[in-house]
């Protein structure tokens, strides 16, 4: 076998010298690790906020108070009232967060499916709780967020008159 007689060390050291290959400095890895951690935390925080906005939108449009799951109501709710854009952003942020988390060592040392499900559950629960403690109501009246919340409050389209007897708007 050719490789048995091979000594790559000299060739590799020559290449390193000839092409002036340098080791990346230590700070490069510290910075990369910091940016990675920062990105994960930012993505998860944003996802928590978006999750909270979904619950907020559902609450302000009184969606949660409709008990009747009649198909007409459900159709109109999904078509006009459900915050699909927020939902898509949440999925995107969650996917990005999961993608970055996968780069960490624990992703293959621990039960990965459980971690992903746990993260999803935590995002939904934290979103629900943030909305329930009234964070949105407080932010709504503060300057940097006021305009943002004004846009959030606008219903996309009014629900049509209920077609099923007894159904509330």
């Amino acid at each position, binding site marked *: 076998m050719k490789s048995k007689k091979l000594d790559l060390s000299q060739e*590799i050291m020559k290449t390193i010298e000839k092409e002036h290959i340098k080791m990346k400095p230590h700070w490069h890895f510290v910075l990369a690790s910091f940016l990675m951690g920062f990105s994960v935390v930012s993505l998860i925080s944003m996802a928590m906020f978006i999750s909270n906005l979904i619950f907020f939108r559902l609450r302000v449009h009184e969606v949660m108070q409709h008990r009747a799951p009649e198909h007409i109501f459900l159709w109109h709710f999904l078509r006009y009232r459900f915050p699909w854009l927020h939902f898509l952003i949440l999925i995107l942020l969650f996917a990005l967060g999961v993608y970055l988390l996968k780069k960490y060592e624990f992703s293959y040392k621990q039960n990965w499916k459980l971690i992903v499900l746990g993260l999803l559950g935590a995002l939904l629960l934290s979103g629900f709780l943030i909305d329930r403690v009234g964070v949105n109501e407080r932010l709504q009246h503060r300057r940097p967020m006021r305009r943002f919340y004004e846009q959030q409050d606008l219903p996309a389209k009014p629900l049509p008159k209920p077609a099923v007897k007894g159904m509330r708007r």
Partner: protein
Amino acid sequence: MKFLSSLSDGELVKLVREEDQELYAVLVKRYQDKLLRYAQRILRDEDVAIDIVQEAFIKAFKNLNGFNINKKFSSWIYRIAHNLCIDHIRKNKKQISLEENEWVKNTISNGEDIEAEFDKKEIKKKVDKVLEKLPVKYRSVLTLYYIEEKTYEEISDVLRVSKGTVATWLSRGKKLMKKVYEK
């Protein structure tokens, strides 16, 4: 030189980083044969394997400051070489099968227990003959376990899959190997 050979990989890495980059040659000498053997089994092309291993050592040198000396250097360098092998296979997908085909799936689903028939020593002898016919993931795991004699933990670090997955791939790989061998 005798002093150097008594040093652990971690100590050598520290010396290369802080004192003398030329000592990297010692690390290369320590791992070149093992990595060449591994890359050859995965790629089935000696010349390409040599290129990949050289590339792996250069890449490792560039990133040496990012290596955590509390971890195993061998797993780290194997991981770099493995990734380069996979990248090469992906670029040349037509020539080497990366994934499972129908035959592989059917053989795996045929739940025979071959553990008793094929013990580790016996497999080691036969593994080379049949390895090249298997998909890359089974080829990698079988090579690391039987040829390179790595533990589940080390294989898990090289392939970045859980120890449970390593065990599953190993068991499926053995089934496949037996089928290929019987043909």
